[in-house]
């Protein structure tokens, strides 16, 4: 059994914690910032999953044993790009929100604060 990497594990924790704190806010911009932190954290997890640091995985220049695991690296590239795409879309949503409502706060849905407020829809008579 190998040993756990304390620094990277703590970093993942800090990024997730900071991201979570931002996710739980009303401003969509801060939510996006939170997702960005989460994205970094997830990529670091992939990095840790690939094992300890090593040489760049270039065939011929290094051996499979000495190289960093290339698969998580490739997966992280995919993830980074996807995060970029979603970030752009979320920011466009925020922009649209600013256009329509003047701010980027995520408003609450009001339907269920009202739903079932009276006894309509009983077996007796619905209207």
């Amino acid at each position: 059994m190998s040993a756990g990497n304390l620094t990277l594990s703590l970093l993942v924790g800090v990024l997730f914690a900071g991201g979570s704190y931002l996710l739980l806010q009303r401003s969509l911009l801060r939510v996006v910032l939170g997702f960005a932190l989460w994205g970094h954290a997830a990529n670091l997890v992939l990095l840790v999953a690939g094992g300890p640091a090593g040489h760049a995985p270039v065939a011929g220049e290094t051996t499979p044993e000495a190289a960093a695991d290339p698969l998580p690296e490739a997966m992280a590239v995919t993830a980074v790009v996807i995060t970029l795409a979603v970030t752009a879309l979320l920011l466009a949503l925020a922009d649209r929100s600013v256009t329509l409502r003047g701010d980027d706060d995520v408003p609450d849905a009001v339907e269920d604060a009202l739903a079932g407020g009276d006894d309509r829809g009983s077996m007796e008579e619905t209207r």
Partner: protein
Amino acid sequence: MPPDRGSLTLVAALLLAHLVLAAAAAALTPRVGSRALLVGALAPAASFAWLVAAAPDVLAGRPRRSDWTWAETLDLEVPLRLDGLSLLLGLVVTGVGTLVLLYGVHYFADRRHGMVRTTAVLVLFAGAMLALVLADNVLALYVAWELTTVCSFLLIGDEGRDGEHRSAALRALLVTTGAGFALLLGLLLLGDAAGTYRLSEIVAAPPTGAQAATAVVLVLVGALAKSAQVPFHPWLPAAMVAPTPVSAYLHAAAMVKAGIYLVARLAPALAEVLPWRPIVLAVGVATMLLGGWRALAQTDLKRLLAYGTIAQLGFLLVLLGAGTRTAALAGAAMLLAHAAFKATLFLVVGIIDHEAGTRDLRELTGVGRRAPGLAVVAGLACLSMAGLPPTIGYLGKEAAFEAFVEPGTGHGWVLAGIVAGSVLTVAYTLRFLWGAFADRPGVEPRLERRPPLSFVAPAAVLGAAGVVLGLLPSVVDALASGHADAYPVEHSYHLALWHGFSPPLFLSLVTLVAGAALHLARDRVDAARGAVPPVPSAEGAQDGVARGVLAAAGGLTRSTQVGSLPGYLLVVLLAVCLGPGGVLLVQVGLPERYRAWDTPAQALIGVAVVIAVVGVVRIHRRIVAVLVLSAVGYSVALLFLLHGAPDLALTQVLVETVTLLVFVLVIRRMPAEVRHPPEVLRGVRAVVALMVGALATLATLTISARRVPSRSTEGYFAEAPAEGGPNVTNLIISEFRALDTLGEVTVLAIASTGVASLVLVTSRLRGTPRGGHDRPGRAEREAEKEDAR
């Protein structure tokens, strides 16, 4: 016995004929109006003829059967079987069905709207009901059972234009399907315990034990609700808002008998399983008494008949569920009798209602004098209902008394109950006759003409049938024995008009006299009824349950579906921490060995990342927060580079730069500062965030301590040169796992389209009226409503 191919084709054709003729009649309705029912009536009429033709064979103990499999994996077969009981019910369903449809031609003649649906559903119902009594598989029976419920819902609701129709339809639907679901579970348990879903096989080898007992309770719930027994009964009087042919057919003769039929079908097998007899007998007697008592209080003739029906259904339940031969014989006879007389009386009320415009007995006068033929028809039916000779009702009631005069557990109180119930029956029979046909001084007569013969004829046929059959006791005995012979013959009782001076004859006399006395003393009875303090009614209880469920649903939904994104994410994060996080902490725990870092540089960059993260979280000036975020991103890219992932680091740096620009472009248009969040939530938010962070650290530590080497690295290194170059990471992206990349760039392309559609749409929306494009939000609608008030 091998399936009989000939009858398979014929029965299938008959059932199909209902479907086809329903469609044909519905198609004809817009052109010929209610006369389309004549076409529809062909289906039950043909079925009736087939049943009559098959009767001698069946009664000789040779049931007809056929097989058809719907879904083998689910044991969903549709075997059909015609035995004595099915024949009995089948004759009722098709016979009454034919006459009611003929009657409908006249009844619905003036109707403009909704006839297409009414026609189609009535004919469909006839088919479903026939299928129900012929089905030899519990699941097939259930299918037909629920079909009749849906037909009932649509027919009760009619056009659904007023609240009474709507709520009556919904009540009938919910009570009967709700109990139907219990029935389904019961039937499945029963089938599982018996090892077969075949009714005939279950009856031949009945299951026992706890599972059978549970099944019995659930099956009975379904059967009792369908047959309007206490405490499920309120849906039936409410259903009387339906047009009279519907009430006569569905809610007197046919559909409500489905529950009775099921009880009769299973009683030979399950009467000995413990909760069966106590439930059946107690509920039956209670229903009979309650129905009779409430019938005496009605002023609406139709509701009077409805409560009478409830009482009679209770009576039938006692007889057919008791599980003895004599009781079954009596039950079979009473079932025939009830179908004939109750349908007749409903049709008579329908005629009165149609011609006089009311069916309230306080507003009716002189009907007997103006329509004597109608009075005679009703009188014939009432003879049977009250149990007077020489009617079929008399045959049944004599046999019923006989069945419980015999010694047996609990027979004493059951006998007392059915005698009392019969007294009430006589009393409300008289009340009906008095109410419909008597002269009332001071009331304006409303009946202007004698109802046409074609209108009265179906009722007359049914009414006469009760007397004709009563005069042919041997025929009735043969029909009823077809079912009763399912029981072992203890001492052979036969239906007859004269059994000598026996206790049943004496009891019959008692009921007649007491019933007549009760009718004569109606004013005093009414006074007594008024003096009784109101007891909680079943109707109120059902409404209470509905209100309770709605209140609970409203409360739950209001308090949880709060519509707040932070709230929802909070729940998600908590779920992750408490569920998987809990398992990790409790069952896996902390790894034993650590290393601080791979290289000290990791720690240096790590400190920078931590500082930057704190900055992003704490800074409320948007632009600064975004810039600090980039610092996190670039630091992470450095970590990638240190780790031996230059491709990833390069992508990260470039993406971070682009991201930064996107951020800057967007926040130009936003307020510079984010509003400070309310203090209340800050603590919760911080706690949850720390929990997530702790879980993430724990998970990462665990995996980095328990990591197993990749299974693919060597393969990649070996194959890379042949695929175009030595850069393994890049080859994974463009070759080995190119499918992922294909998906990923698709995401990019669509995101890009989405950004454009989100932002650029503005110019197109401008100038178009908003209402045309958007569902108005709930809040706006509320506001509009407020304005309207």
